[in-house]
């Protein structure tokens, strides 16, 4: 490649980069051994409204704090306009934050809270020392240069030109009023010009007007209501005219009505100000209402990013579907292209390319199910309950033992047998994240192995077909070879339904906490997180609560060995790359 090409490529790269104001590259944050944010890559466009959405502890706030500069990433880059700012302290970053609990300074009134940033504003100026050396010094806002003809501070004056502009007759902000008075007397300048104090005054007043709190300047911040404090916090951030505004669950402490009002106002502000908003929330409705782009996070990883419409209509995983809005999440089997079996009935769908007889996750939004007469539906069921919810009725219909939630403006009477119809395009089909638990275990004897620190019994005859052992269980014969298993390891597999959850953690070899649950119409798929942060999935008909401490029991007969030819696939129960699931799915069928 010759140099010309290289230069061209470089130029292209630059153009591409300049489109994005913030880029996160391989951003990782660890506290001790715990990975809170794991290798996040994200590009944020200028003027975009981006929302990080996820449950508490998913790493969304940590990500925001790394952009703001309160946390230094363990690895990765935070590019601001192409420049890495990951290690820059917060006061040097061109971003401002609206904090969750506002963090208004209690000893300052509204005006001084808002003016705080303005008064600190500094630019670096190159100048020549007396001995001819070049030096850099910090210039305060009051020393900013003002064009005496317009009366406005000229921030565009480059640092190196500062002194040449002074020679040109530009005046420092603090002196401008005096200067103008003098000039006006001489009849030279007739324009209205503001001095330093007036300049700040005007900015603060404008910010207060934007947030709808005019005439609140002298109020004590402690005397304001939650909503008003929130507005002051926003004013305090936007008055500095940041390129990017970071908002950390800013509406979390407000009541519903206030929150909805502020959502609309924030969206308006975003339009008027035209700056980039990065917003963090756990409220999916808030995220869908306000954002241009929603980034759904879980366990420090981005699950999906896209427009609110994409995220809602085409969730990539059951987790995203469950988190965003109400939905019916069900197990399905992709019979063939455009054909899917859900709860024992074949539905037409618009998806293809999954292969034949592949287990998949199905999402159907409650409002996409049409209640028809018994004959006209694809599947028949009985209405079990109905609740008036204002705009619609929320009905529960049982079909083949599975529950469907339906939102409809027309009520069907309880007990009535109805037909349900779902248009093919409204069936969202997703790869399964996991189809079974696959774990690398170490044998501790011929009948026990160690899995994530718990010792489980297993039945060797269930693991190996051609296998026998003597009465004392001392000698194990596999494929005609006497084997001592102790110390060796293997990859084993067990199904979701083989996991037995128990209240008594000491009655089971291994314990963990319930991390999340997804309702599948009849049963729950429970994600149990062990103390070493491994995940084990269980299928249960009982409802557990998030955070419940449970013991994990597994029937010794239920383990299967993962065959050698499949051994090169790296799966350890945590692996979630889509490619692997396909293969795993294969094995399962």
């Amino acid at each position: 490649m010759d140099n010309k090409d290289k230069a061209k490529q470089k130029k292209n790269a630059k153009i591409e980069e300049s489109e994005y104001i913030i880029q996160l590259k391989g951003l990782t944050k660890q506290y001790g051994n715990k990975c809170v944010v794991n290798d996040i890559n994200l590009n944020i466009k200028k003027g975009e409204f981006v929302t990080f959405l996820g449950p508490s502890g998913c790493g969304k706030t940590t990500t925001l704090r790394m952009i703001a500069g309160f946390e230094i990433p363990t690895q990765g880059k935070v590019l601001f306009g192409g420049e890495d700012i990951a290690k820059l302290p917060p006061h040097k970053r061109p971003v401002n934050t609206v904090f969750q609990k506002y963090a208004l300074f209690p000893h300052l009134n509204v005006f001084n809270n808002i003016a705080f940033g303005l008064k600190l504003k500094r630019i670096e100026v190159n100048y020549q020392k007396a001995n001819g050396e070049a030096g850099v010094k910090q210039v305060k806002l009051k020393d900013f240069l003002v064009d005496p003809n317009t009366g406005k501070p000229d921030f565009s004056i480059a640092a190196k030109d500062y002194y040449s502009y002074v020679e040109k007759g530009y005046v420092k902000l603090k002196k401008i009023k005096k200067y103008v008075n003098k000039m006006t007397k001489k009849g030279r300048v007739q324009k209205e010009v503001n001095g330093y104090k007036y300049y700040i005054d005007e900015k603060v007043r404008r910010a207060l007007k934007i947030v709808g709190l005019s005439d609140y300047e002298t109020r004590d911040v402690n005397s304001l209501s939650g909503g008003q404090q929130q507005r002051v916090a926003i004013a305090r951030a936007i008055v500095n005219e940041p390129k990017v505004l970071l908002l950390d669950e800013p509406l979390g402490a407000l009541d519903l009505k206030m929150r909805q009002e502020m959502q609309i106002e924030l969206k308006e502000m975003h339009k008027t100000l035209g700056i980039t908003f990065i917003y963090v929330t756990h409220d999916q409705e808030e995220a869908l209402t306000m954002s241009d782009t929603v980034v759904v996070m879980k366990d420090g990883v981005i699950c999906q990013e896209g427009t609110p419409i994409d995220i809602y209509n085409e969730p990539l995983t059951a987790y995203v579907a469950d988190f965003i809005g109400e939905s019916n999440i069900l197990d399905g089997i992709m019979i063939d292209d455009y054909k899917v079996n859900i709860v024992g009935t074949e539905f037409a769908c618009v998806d293809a390319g999954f292969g034949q007889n592949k287990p998949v996750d199905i999402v159907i939004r409650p409002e996409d199910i049409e209640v028809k007469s018994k004959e006209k539906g694809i599947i028949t069921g009985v209405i079990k309950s109905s609740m008036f919810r204002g705009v619609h009725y929320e009905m529960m219909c049982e079909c083949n033992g599975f529950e469907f939630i339906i939102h409809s403006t027309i009520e069907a009477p309880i007990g009535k047998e109805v037909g349900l119809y779902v248009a093919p395009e409204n069936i969202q089909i997703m790869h399964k994240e996991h189809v079974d638990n696959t774990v690398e275990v170490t044998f501790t004897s011929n009948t026990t192995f160690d899995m994530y620190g718990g010792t489980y019994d297993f039945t060797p005859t269930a693991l190996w077909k051609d296998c026998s052992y003597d009465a004392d269980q001392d000698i194990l014969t596999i494929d005609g070879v006497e084997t001592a298993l102790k110390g060796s390891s293997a990859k084993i597999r067990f199904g979701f339904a083989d996991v037995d959850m128990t209240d008594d953690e000491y009655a089971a070899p291994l314990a963990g906490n319930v991390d999340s649950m997804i309702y599948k119409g009849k049963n729950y798929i429970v994600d149990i997180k062990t103390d070493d942060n491994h995940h084990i999935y269980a299928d249960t008909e009982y409802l557990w609560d998030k955070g419940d401490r449970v013991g994990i029991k597994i029937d010794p007969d239920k383990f299967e060995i993962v065959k050698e030819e499949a051994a090169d696939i790296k799966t350890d129960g945590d692996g979630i790359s889509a490619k692997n699931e396909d293969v795993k799915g294969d094995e399962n069928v």
Partner: protein
Amino acid sequence: MFKKCMAIPYALFMALFVLLPLALVLVFAFIDASDGSFDMIANFKELAKEQALGKVISNSLIAGLSTSALCLLIGYPIAYFLTKPEFNRKGVMIGLFLAPMWVNFLLRMMATKAVFNVLGFKMGMGAVIFGLTYEYLPFMIMPLYNTILKIDKSYIEGASDLGATPTRAFWKITLPLSMPGIISGLTMVLIPSITTFAVTEIMSNGKMMLLGDFIYSLKADSLNMAAAISFVLLIFMGISMFISNKYADGGSKGGGIC
């Protein structure tokens, strides 16, 4: 009714050990010792005549104010760094700094005096101020530590987010917000150090007197005079409390032992 009965011991305690002594001080201050009659100004006139008193008051003010200032200057940085977890793992350091309070102060003063003598330092005002600072430093650190500890970290983050360097954030946020602690620390050092006795006696070889020593030196029969001086001190105390309350209300609440 039962709940009200529970308050009786405290009410009795208050009456016997707080209200009664205060009342006695007031009564004695306004009774003429020579004839036992009620006289508003007799004791104060007598006080004014006392030659040494002017010197005692000026000494007290100098010693008290410089002790307070020194305690604040030394105590603030200590308290500030002790609130940082990296300097004060599990509160061990703060315990160490407060440990001198566990040793009898007379013993400490005498030891200090011995050290001063060995080093050949002159015993006088300087030594007294040193002794007082040594004595009262923990009383300054404690309220400061509590106040600074309670300042929400998000204020500092907010300030740095708005462009403040760490130094600037300290002057603009941390210091103003630790005002209540400063005030209560000063209250706990100023008045006690003015009215202390023994420290002066030991650290100045009995050459110097503060108000406390002066009261101590009065003979048993001049209880009325002592009461009069106490009355003056009470007024001082009242004024300083008034000022401290006024400031403490301004900033965030809490902090301080009192």
